[in-house]
Every structure is written in structure tokens, then in C-alpha cells.
């Protein structure tokens, strides 16, 4: 299948400042692409470039097989939902939704029909005569989505659409957007700085930093095999434990030696990975460290660790200890008896371990 969106060697400069450097992304029809990264990483600029709201300095953008690099936003067959919703304040909800069709000269009967369809889909029929100022945040969000849906575009663009909502509503709307994507089987590009949003919504994630793509992959790939230290640290909450360690070969296996304050070094044996450099940074997700006895498998090893802090979070309890000069968070079951200041036997599951080079941050395994 031809890609619905194909970005090649895209560059964007503001004066002499490089905002986006050599961006290459393409998605298939039906993909949900999420651009994620810290603020200032260029993700919103990239979205604006896709929309045609920002001219690009180099490269090309094609949408549904057509080169759109020089095409104006209205002719790109896109619809966009903005962070501030950007509803036209003086128009009613109905007028907001039909404005685009009115501008394009769609006849009144079609406008009414599409308006009713979209309103029913988003359950905003009773709001059609209100002004945006009379709506709640969640309702405005729906109207903004209605304005996009009514267009029936080749590509939907979302610019942090949920960041102005409160936490509960955000989760609700997230589910609705996901449902919408499934029902419409539409192609979407979605910008967020919230890595949980990225994980839950995406079929494909682009992690960006400083105008450079750090990694492109499915949520599982990004989560389980982060390409570098930045991605490892950025994706996942609580973040992946990144522990400085030394390695030494021991027969067919590799021994990972981690310094501990006031105790013997912790030595873990990895039978899957060989040929590691002497100094590495070991990446282990909090859920890959459990209380001994609660995890089994070939790659699970147990060691006593000093517990510094216990943070019950309802479903899980997070336990913080000190390894390799870093605080290390373990995700334990809720009924754990761990107490601060006491040693606890912990199980380290190395089946999903990541290794990174300390100097470059690049993934080693």
C-alpha cells in the first residue's frame, strides 16, 4: 500500500536556528502516528509543516501520494484539531462545524446532512446552537473534533488536543479518540508531550528531541527496546532505571557488576548478551524488578537490596533502593512487606534488559 503520509529529508530553519533536522517519516493508511517529545523538540512545528501552516526549508511532504510540499493548507485534504481548540468565538457550534464547507461552497443540504451525522457521532446535537464560550472544556474538544470529522480528510492532525483538559476528562477523551480511530479507520498524526497518551493511542510512535528523530517504532518496540538513553528515560512512568555498571565475561555468559553503597557489589549474570563493552548503562524497567518469589524464569536472579523508600500506589507499591549510585525503582505487588531501612530479597528479570553506551547513549544490544 502506498503511504498516506510520506515525509522525506524535511528541514526547517528559523533564521539560522535549525528546528527540524532531516526528518524522514512515512505512515500507511489507517496508522495512528504519535509525535512525542519534550517541549521545544519540534514536534508541533513538524505538525504545522505537515499542515502547510509553516513553510519548510528543505525536503518534501506528500499526502495520499500527492506532493504537497508547496500546496496551501486548504488543498492538502487534511483536518486539524488544535490545543486551544481554536473555535470561532462568535459562531454557534453548528456554524463552527460547517464553516469549512461554507467556505468551500458545499450546498446547504449536504452541509446540514453532514452536520447532523457528525453531531450524532460525537453526541453534541443538543449543543449546536450554543456559542463556544458557553461550553465546557470537554464539549469544546468535541466540537473541535466535529469540525475536523466533517471534512472527511485523508489525514487528521491533532496538536496536543487533550492538554487543556483535567486528568479524568483527558483519559475519557483519549479513549474516545482511540475509538474514533478504530471506527473510522482513519489515518492520524497526533502530537503530545505525554508519553502515556503516546503509548495508548499510537500504532506508531516517533520520539523526538532537539529537532531530531530519536526512534520510530511501535509502542512495544519503543517501550521494550528504546534506541538510546533519551528514549529509555522519556518513555514509561516511572522511568526506566538506568544504572551504571561494569561487565566482565565469565564463560559463555556476561557478568554485570553494579556498585552498592556499604555492601558487596551486586552481580547479575546475563546469558543472552555477549560482547558488551566494559562500561555500560543497564536499563531495567521498574516492573522487571520484583520481590523474590513473585517472578520466575530463566533470566530471573535474586539479590538482597536495602530498601530506602516505599511508595504505595494502590495497585502496585514502588520500592526505591540505591544501586550503582542511582535511585532504582522497583514495581512490587501491593501487599509487599517491604519496609524502609530493611533489606528485601528482590528478583531482577533480565529477559528485557537494555544496555546503553555511557558516552553516546546508544543502545548496545
Amino acid at each position, binding site marked *: 500500500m502506498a503511504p498516506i503520509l510520506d515525509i522525506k529529508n524535511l528541514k526547517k530553519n528559523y533564521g539560522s536556528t535549525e528546528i527540524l533536522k532531516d526528518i524522514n517519516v512515512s505512515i500507511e493508511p489507517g496508522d495512528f502516528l504519535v509525535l512525542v517529545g519534550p517541549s521545544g523538540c519540534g514536534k508541533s512545528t513538524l505538525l*504545522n509543516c505537515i499542515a502547510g501552516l509553516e513553510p519548510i526549508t528543505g525536503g518534501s511532504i506528500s499526502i495520499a501520494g500527492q506532493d504537497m510540499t508547496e500546496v496551501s493548507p486548504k488543498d492538502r485534504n487534511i483536518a*486539524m484539531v488544535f490545543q*486551544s481548540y481554536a473555535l470561532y468565538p*462568535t459562531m454557534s457550534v453548528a456554524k463552527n462545524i460547517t*464553516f469549512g464547507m461554507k467556505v468551500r461552497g458545499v450546498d446547504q443540504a449536504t452541509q446540514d446532512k453532514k452536520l447532523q451525522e457528525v453531531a450524532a457521532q460525537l453526541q453534541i446535537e443538543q449543543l449546536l446552537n450554543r456559542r463556544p*464560550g458557553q461550553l465546557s472544556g470537554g464539549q469544546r474538544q468535541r466540537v473541535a473534533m466535529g469540525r475536523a470529522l466533517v471534512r472527511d480528510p485523508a489525514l487528521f492532525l491533532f496538536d496536543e488536543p487533550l492538554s487543556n483538559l483535567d486528568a479524568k476528562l483527558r483519559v475519557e477523551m483519549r479513549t474516545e479518540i482511540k475509538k474514533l480511530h478504530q471506527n473510522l479507520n482513519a489515518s492520524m498524526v497526533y502530537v503530545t508531550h505525554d508519553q502515556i497518551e503516546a503509548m495508548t493511542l499510537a500504532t506508531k510512535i516517533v520520539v523526538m528531541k532537539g529537532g531530531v528523530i530519536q526512534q520510530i517504532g511501535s509502542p512495544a518496540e519503543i517501550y521494550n527496546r528504546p534506541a538510546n538513553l533519551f528514549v529509555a528515560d522519556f518513555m514509561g512512568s516511572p522511568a526506566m532505571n538506568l544504572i551504571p555498571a561494569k561487565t566482565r565475561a565469565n564463560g559463555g555468559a556476561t557478568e554485570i557488576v553494579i556498585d552498592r553503597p556499604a555492601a558487596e557489589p551486586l552481580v547479575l549474570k546475563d546469558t543472552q548478551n555477549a560482547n558488551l563493552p566494559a562500561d555500560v548503562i543497564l536499563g531495567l524497567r521498574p516492573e522487571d524488578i520484583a520481590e523474590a518469589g513473585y517472578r520466575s524464569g530463566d533470566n530471573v536472579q535474586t539479590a538482597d537490596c536495602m530498601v530506602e523508600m516505599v511508595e504505595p500506589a494502590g495497585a502496585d507499591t514502588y520500592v526505591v533502593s540505591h544501586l550503582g549510585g542511582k535511585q532504582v525503582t522497583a514495581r512490587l505487588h501491593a501487599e509487599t512487606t517491604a519496609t524502609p531501612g530493611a533489606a528485601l530479597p528482590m528478583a531482577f528479570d533480565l529477559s528485557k534488559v537494555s544496555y546503553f553506551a555511557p558516552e553516546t547513549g546508544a543502545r548496545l544490544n
Partner: protein
Amino acid sequence: MTDMTVTNARSGGLSKIALRWILYILLGIFALYYLMPLFVMLTTSLKSLDEIRTGSLVALPRDVTFDAWRTAWSGACTGIQCEGLQPYFWNSVLIAVPAVMISTLLGAMNGYVVAQWRFKGANIIFSLMLFGCFIPFQVVLLPMATTLGKLGLAGTIPGLIFVHVVYGLGFTTLFFRNYYVTIPQELVKAAKVDGAGFFRIFWSIFLPLSLPIIVVTVIWQFTQIWNDFLFGVSFSQAGTQPITVALNNIVNSTTGVKEYNVDMAAAIIAALPTLLVYVVAGKYFIRGLTAGSVKG
């Protein structure tokens, strides 16, 4: 609030109450001082010349007569003509109304461009326009007279409209620009994605949002243009003079007895339209000046 005042008065005792009264009295005196000229003007305009000569300046009129008003409106002499203020009043209307409308509309467009369609040098152009607000009018009299002559507009009402539009643009642009920068840029982006162009966005989205600032601009421009004397006296000729120039001529060209009551009535007539604009649109004026961001 009420409770607080009561407790304050109790705890503070008499001195607090006395202070409050002194404050009110002082404010009252200032208000009286400020309103005194208006009072004198009104009463004088309603007196006969005899009564003015014999009575006190601040006394109320014994016999209220509107003769002076009638004379001021349609009989007072400006130089050799004795038609009163009437024709000049309509001159002023013919100048002020189109000039206010054109300068407001152009200012809205300029403001829209400078605030929402950022282009290279937008800031420089805006600064230059702003600078235009502060050029003393005396400086431009001669160049403007030459320009009007070349345009064939010298001494005409369209010429005066042109002058007022040009010198109003700096302020109207400033007003609209400051209003429009508070409107999120995403609104323009959304409209662009919807397919609307430059003018469509202006007409359908920005102008409907602009009522408060339009009111402010109209009041400001109307007051400026209606009260203008310098341009009026420099760029008009007999028959196209605005009311301010005519008022001056009435007051200064009286021969024989000075008709204070007519002068006063004429001055009030000349001031009435601006007063009316404030009364009608005043509450929007305050609202517009303090209007911050637009709630989407």
C-alpha cells in the same frame, strides 16, 4: 463589604467617620470646581443679554429664553455671513462620519495584518505607524497642503476626510493591533485549514469579535476629528469649514456688543455630538479599554 465598613467605623471611632466626611467634601469641591464652567455656560446661554449685564455670573436665569440658542444655530454671524452654526455643523458631520468609518476600517485591517499575519519587517512597519501617532500636526501642515493641492482636494470636504484618515491611522492601527494580538494565532490556522483566505478570516472571524475595540476607536476618532481645529482652519475654505472654525469665527468676529449668551450656546452646540457619543457608547469604551483576552 458592608460588615467590614461597620466594624471599621466602630473600631476606629469618630476619627474614621470624620476622615471619611472630609474625603467626601473634598471630592465634592473638586467636582463642583470641575462642573462650574459648564454650569456658567448653560445658565448664561439661557439668559438674555440684559440679564447677563446686570446679574451675577453664577446666578440662575430669571427668565429662561432660548433666543441665544436659536441665534447660535441659525442666525449668528461668522464674518459677513449670518447663517449661524447650522451649515458648519453639517460640514463637520460630513467630514467626521466618513473619516471615522474609513480610518476605523483601515485600522482594523492594518491591526489584523500586523498582529496575525506576521511577515518580515512587520515590527518595523508597526513601529513606524506608531511613530506617526506622535508627529506634531504643525509639522505636516505644509507638506499636506502641497499634497492636497496636487490631488486636487485642497479646500474640499473630501480633502479634510483624507487628512483625518491619514492622521488617524496610526492610532486606529495601534488600537486594533493591541486587541488582535490577544487572539490566539491558532484561530487563524484553524480557519486556514478550513480553507478561508485573508479577507474571509477578517470578515467572518475577526470583525465579529471586534465590537468593543470598534467602539473605543470610533469614540476616539470621532472626538479627535470633531474637535479638530488646526486641520479644519488650514485646509478648508469658505463653505467647507467645520464647526470648530465657525465657532471661533462667531466668537471673534462680533462687532459692537459681545453676545455672551450666543457664544455660550454655540460652544455647547459644538460640543454636543462628542458628549452624545460618550453617553451612548461610554460603557463600551471602558469595557473596550480594559478588554483582555478573548474567551474562546
